[in-house]
């Protein structure tokens, strides 16, 4: 299992939130055109960000480059777009992905399309950071996973890190990318700790990572589902079922090659994400497999995704609404039944 696309180097343990904070610092030091804006990014809590991702940035870079905004999501995204097309590199935060519902016009109709509509004569190097997912009892308006909306919009790139090291390297690449990048963090993963290489490194957009190798079944997971798949793999290994876990890391561009290579090897695949199943990105990933490896499949592609309901508040109901480790295990057992 490789943690990044880079050669392994000396590492230390960081939380995903700390890793993102390092990425922002390094890129802001590197390029004076990089700046951060959003709600509560400068002052809240211990100095920025409801999950501490922007903590302390205002102390180092000042209020000109770390801007708390009024509660105006459409303006935040629109201003980021205008700032990007005129030569700066905004990293704008929308506090919860649910609130991008107020910012879809600037993201989808402006940022994603300007370059193409202008015949290639513009660049829109902006990053929209938003946080998605359930698991904290925030209920229906603060727990959605909406990556599928953005995946459906040509012109956008979509990033979904699951590990601290990936998160740092991917955010740095996203900030240096000349396209609008929707950088989606999962609220339940900020405190996840993991080794992060010392010093400068990037994780390229469009390169999946095989988090665990196995030969009986492939699980392609997004965000928390990568972790649940790894836990499931550990349990199933005891029974001799070898699960390969693939983390696409970026949904656009999608590393179809790595996914297909794995499926051609295992002949069985589970696609797992927390977003509701209906219309989720699982359908797209599955169709890429159908397009490229249909004849290799020994069993139907299975989806393990969020139930088609708004996320409920009650703990038990919320747990049931989103896929759990047991669900991944059950799906895998079904697929390998008899075969292993």
């Amino acid at each position, binding site marked *: 299992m490789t943690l990044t696309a880079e050669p392994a180097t000396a590492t230390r343990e960081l939380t995903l939130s700390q890793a993102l904070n390092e990425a922002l610092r390094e890129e802001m030091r590197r390029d004076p055109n990089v700046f951060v804006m959003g*709600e509560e990014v400068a002052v809240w809590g*211990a100095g920025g960000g409801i999950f501490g991702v922007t903590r302390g940035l205002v102390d180092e870079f000042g209020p000109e480059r770390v801007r708390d905004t009024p*509660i105006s999501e459409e303006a935040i995204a629109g201003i980021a777009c205008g700032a990007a097309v005129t030569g700066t590199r905004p990293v704008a935060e929308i506090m919860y992905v649910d609130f991008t519902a107020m910012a879809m016009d600037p993201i989808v109709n402006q940022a994603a399309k300007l370059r193409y509509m202008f015949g290639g004569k513009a660049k829109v190097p902006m990053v929209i950071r938003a946080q998605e997912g359930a698991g904290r*009892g925030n209920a*229906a*308006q603060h727990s959605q996973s909406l990556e599928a909306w953005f995946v459906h919009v040509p012109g956008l790139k979509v990033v979904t890190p699951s590990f601290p090291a990936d998160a740092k390297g991917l955010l740095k690449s996203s900030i240096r990318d000349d396209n609008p990048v929707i950088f989606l963090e999962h609220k339940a993963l900020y405190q996840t700790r993991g080794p992060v290489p010392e010093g400068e490194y990037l994780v390229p957009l469009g390169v999946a990572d095989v988090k665990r190798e196995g030969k009986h079944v492939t699980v392609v997971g997004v965000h928390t589902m990568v972790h649940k798949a790894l836990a499931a793999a550990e349990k199933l290994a005891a029974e001799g079922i070898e699960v390969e876990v693939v983390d696409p890391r970026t949904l656009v561009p999608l590393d179809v090659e790595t996914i297909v290579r794995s499926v051609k090897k295992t002949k069985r695949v589970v696609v797992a994400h927390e977003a509701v199943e209906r219309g989720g990105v699982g359908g797209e990933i599955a169709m890429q497999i159908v397009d490229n490896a249909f004849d290799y499949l020994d069993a139907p592609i299975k989806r393990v995704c969020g139930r088609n309901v708004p996320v*409920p508040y009650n703990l038990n*109901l919320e747990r049931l609404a989103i896929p759990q480790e047991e669900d991944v295990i059950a799906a895998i057992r079904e697929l390998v039944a008899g075969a292993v």
Partner: protein
Amino acid sequence: MTVATLDLPKTVVLDILRKMYRIRHFETKVIELFQEGQIRGSTHTYIGEEASGVGACSALRPDDYITSTHRGHGHCIAKGGRLDLMMAELLGKSTGYCKGKGGSMHIADVDAGILGANGIVGGGIGIATGAGLSIKIKRTDQVCVCFFGDGGFNQGVLYECANIAALWKLPVIYLCENNKYAMSTPIEKSSAVADLSARAAAFGMPGINVDGMDVLAMREAVWHAAERARRGDGPSLIVADTYRFEGHNVGDGQRYRTREEVERWRQSDPILRFRDQMVRQGLITDPEADQIEAEVQDELARAIEFASQSPEPDVETLEQDVYA
């Protein structure tokens, strides 16, 4: 505006005091339960702002509507919400207002005119304006009070809806509770205009500032706005000058404001202020007031008892009520 137009029978005095106590004690308990981990997610208390919601709702009829915010417990209680059903919801129980599916930010009682707390800052504005439109189409003379904060004031949907409400003379009262902060952000950092009510000029409706710590001033201001709306003269903007005594949410370290500032505001406690005034004016006696507070304590104890005894929602309910 003169009080003459709006009298203050003793029943109303008692009701106002009871509701303010309900809010204060309910929220105090909420903080405790949240810290114990019995309440999930995030919850925002109304302590210190009681006069705004209670004064406003005391000027309304039972069939009038309100829309609320993420800081919704107070508005719900003020409009007649029941502590037991609210508490059960906060504990995620099947007996709660939302059967445990909504939690703190979604408590609603549509039949009582409470169109819901809202997790989206500004989320209630379109709903309130739409309620105003259906009132107009159905030709009833109800009104809808739309609560939002100084932070929510900056959402574009307010500007769009206020303009339409003014154009169509919808019976909506836009009530901004200016408690000086949006999370850690002070109004100076969120609004380019110091006097928020001045924005009414752009909306095409009258705008006034009211002492939001004075429950009777709020009652009167909303009553006049409601009369205007019922007459068919359209919407109004009311900015209530108030303050939240506690953090934005339970857990907020409040490094963005000083203890002194909070203390200064605590000096003008809206409940004590109203109680003293009523006692001085001889409208109630101290024993009566103590009696009410004691009753509220009992009611709250029973509500908590009810909530904790109530069952968790059945797992079958997960996929119920997604569609009608």
